[in-house]
């Protein structure tokens, strides 16, 4: 199946693209996708992937914060981005 991965803010600069489509195994979990992405983009290896306030990387699935054990569906949009700083 295919998923779309989007990068924002500093990660967009770091990786050099705003989004890409990837062929991934059916039912892959977000945590597994993140490991694939670290292989694919070694720039990400120094970043802290976590699901708490210490994370350098936040992850959303279809526009909603997501936990690493969520399985993905075909056509899902996953976004990786740094801690937010609006306001």
């Amino acid at each position, binding site marked *: 199946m295919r998923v779309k991965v989007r990068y924002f803010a500093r990660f967009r600069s770091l990786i050099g693209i705003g989004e890409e489509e990837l062929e991934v195994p059916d039912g892959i979990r977000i945590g597994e996708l993140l490991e694939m992405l670290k292989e694919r983009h070694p720039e990400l290896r120094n970043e802290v992937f976590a699901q708490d306030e210490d994370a350098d990387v936040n992850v959303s699935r279809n526009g909603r914060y997501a936990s690493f054990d969520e399985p993905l569906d075909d056509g899902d949009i996953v976004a990786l981005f740094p*801690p937010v700083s*609006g306001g």
Partner: protein
Amino acid sequence: MKCRITRDAFDISEAVRLISSPRAGGIVIFLGKVRNESHGRKVLKLIYEAYEDMAVAEMERIREEGLRKFPIEDMLIWHRYGELDVGEDTILVIASGKHRKEAFEACIWAVDEVKRRVPVWKKEVTDEGAFWIEGGRHIRAG
């Protein structure tokens, strides 16, 4: 729209009209602006980047949580993005209630939630170069 992400300057009167009702006796408004200083550096301008669809969805979730959590009448959350000069508006959060206490509490809560959750990122262009702001960290931008 009570949750909105926009490049345009805010029309505060329009925002107040949107959340007014005959039941609302107290309206609390937080308006954020670009300051001329940040951590000792002179700020020239801010560049906000947003994940637009998710930002609006997350603001709507905050609004719905706020309406459940506090005995208020209504809530509005607007955020700007793009290039903003010193003095320009950045964020507008309004809570309206029968009485002022709950409106103040809800507004304070919502501003905190927006800053913690809504996918918007600030790049500060200062006299010492540009910095991405990530939560409390400042990271020199390329």
